């Protein structure tokens, strides 16, 4: 199963490398328009062709990778940053009002139709990458809170936690010192999954015009721009579509591979 991890890692690494490379070099300026050269199919000059404004698709894909990664990464960061402490707190005080409030709050967020809320958020604050991040990030919070709580609860029953309590440590300190490191594997795996979902969500929001705004290239908006031109210039939809699919595929494979590699049950077999 390490094959999955390698394949996923390679795909994700490729996308990351592309994004990083775009910081210092792209084949063309991704914002430079050349309207007479629009809708060129891929050729030697433009490896992935040009879009409806004659911009170089390859350059846009590279910079678009940066947008996708940045949005998804920060959204996962928000989800983890808020969700993990909430999950730890809920598990530390299982059954208390705090646990109840946190878990019911989670259910409530889950109950909201996420896309509708994202649209509302952008209607209130205007479209843009930051607001897309917030919209995606909010829905990541309950995911991480649940995973953390779910992973932490059985740990609280383990003897080593009891031993730490007998050693006089506070619940907060035990959460930080013993629980968090032991749910880290779960969080890494979930983080990878949420990261890939974040990329899909960013693409979806940009597709309906609510993500990163022009002139910042974004895969979702490239698809939205391409949609009426698919039959004229199929590469316009195929190129960003494949970029999204390969990135998400890579991240998911990596998540699966990590899960297998880090699965606590498998660890126990090795002990």
């Amino acid at each position, binding site marked *: 199963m390490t094959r999955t991890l390698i394949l996923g890692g390679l795909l994700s690494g490729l996308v990351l490398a592309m994004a990083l490379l775009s910081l210092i070099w792209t084949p063309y300026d991704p914002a430079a328009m050349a309207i007479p050269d629009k809708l060129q199919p891929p050729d030697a000059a433009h490896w992935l062709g040009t879009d409806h404004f004659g911009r170089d698709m390859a350059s846009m894909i590279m910079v678009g990778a940066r947008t996708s990664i940045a949005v998804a990464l920060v959204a996962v960061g928000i989800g983890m940053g808020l969700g993990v402490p909430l999950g730890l707190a809920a598990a530390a005080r299982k059954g208390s009002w705090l646990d109840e409030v946190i878990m019911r709050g989670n259910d409530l967020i889950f109950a909201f*139709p996420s896309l509708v809320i994202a649209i509302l958020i952008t*209607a209130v604050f205007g479209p843009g990458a930051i607001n897309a991040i917030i919209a995606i990030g909010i829905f990541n919070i309950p995911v991480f809170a649940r995973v953390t709580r779910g992973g932490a609860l059985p740990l609280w029953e383990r003897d080593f936690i009891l031993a730490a309590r007998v050693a006089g440590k506070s619940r907060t300190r035990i959460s930080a010192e013993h629980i968090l490191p032991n749910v880290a594997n779960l969080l890494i795996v979930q983080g990878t999954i949420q990261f890939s979902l974040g990329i899909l969500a960013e693409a979806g929001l940009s*597709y309906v015009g609510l993500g990163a705004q022009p002139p910042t290239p974004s895969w979702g908006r490239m698809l939205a721009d391409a949609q009426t031109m698919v039959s004229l210039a199929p590469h316009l939809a195929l190129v960003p579509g494949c970029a999204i699919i390969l990135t998400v595929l890579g991240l998911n494979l990596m998540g699966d591979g990590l899960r297998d590699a880090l699965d606590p049950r498998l660890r126990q077999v090795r002990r």
Partner: protein
Amino acid sequence: MGTYLLRRVLSLVVSLALASVVIFAVVEIAPGDPARFMLGVNAQPDTVAALRAELGLDQGKVARYLAWVGGMLSGDFGTSYTYRTPVAQMVADRLQVSLPLAGYALVLSVLIALPAGIYAAARRGRPGDVAVMGATQLGIAIPNFWFAMMLVLIFAIRLRWFNAGGFAGWDAGLWAGLHALTLPAIALALPQAAILARVMRSALLDVLGEDFMRTARAKGLTRGQALRRHGLRNALIPVLTIIGLQFSFLLAGGIIIEQVFYLPGLGRLIFQAISARDLIVVESVVMLLVFAVIVVNFAVDLAYVAVDPRLRARS
């Protein structure tokens, strides 16, 4: 069970009350005025004021919130600002598309996913499993709107097997209705089926590791019999959870798909209403969706009880 029910109903009520406040607040602070939107650029301030008065927008926010919630409690969801028809009726019309679409997609998803998941679990680690899991990875990675675009391109424009979109209504007959919803349902079902197949597989694999599966084999059941008789029902709990989540997702999540196939569904109603600042429609429909999600979750919990006798003993 009774305790459980009461607690669930209580938390349901609290959730809905909180949701109504959140929804109202978010919708109300969105910039834009429905009256001005209706009247366009040449309207004069007194005309806008007259329309605002006619729509009841000149009242205070608290009064409007209370009127809205009070109305909903008595079954009145208000009247659309732009369409000037009762929201309840509009929603009922749209549900005729969205509900069957969600149901259709869910059925497709389950029909594809469960056999695929079972097949993969039964052949764990063998080429069949690898192929199915590879396909599900791909299914999850494909953005559904992109997939929808491709479906239209191939099946509606090139092959002309299906209409490119639109929905004539159920008056045109059940078959015509299903035919019109087939492509959208496939586009919606694909990623869901992929997720469900993975859940089915891993749930089954978990169950296969349980002691009672060994007991079943010791009785003389073949691997397949043990899987069917003892594995499936135990694996059903995580699968049910996901199915419940998916139904609520499908109900609201079809927005983009409804757009691509220009279906007169709930998602498109919300989209239109948001851009027209038809606040009451947005509020009521979002509320309804939240309600639907909570009710579906509740139904899923009841389904657990049907599946798992351990939960029945809570009385």
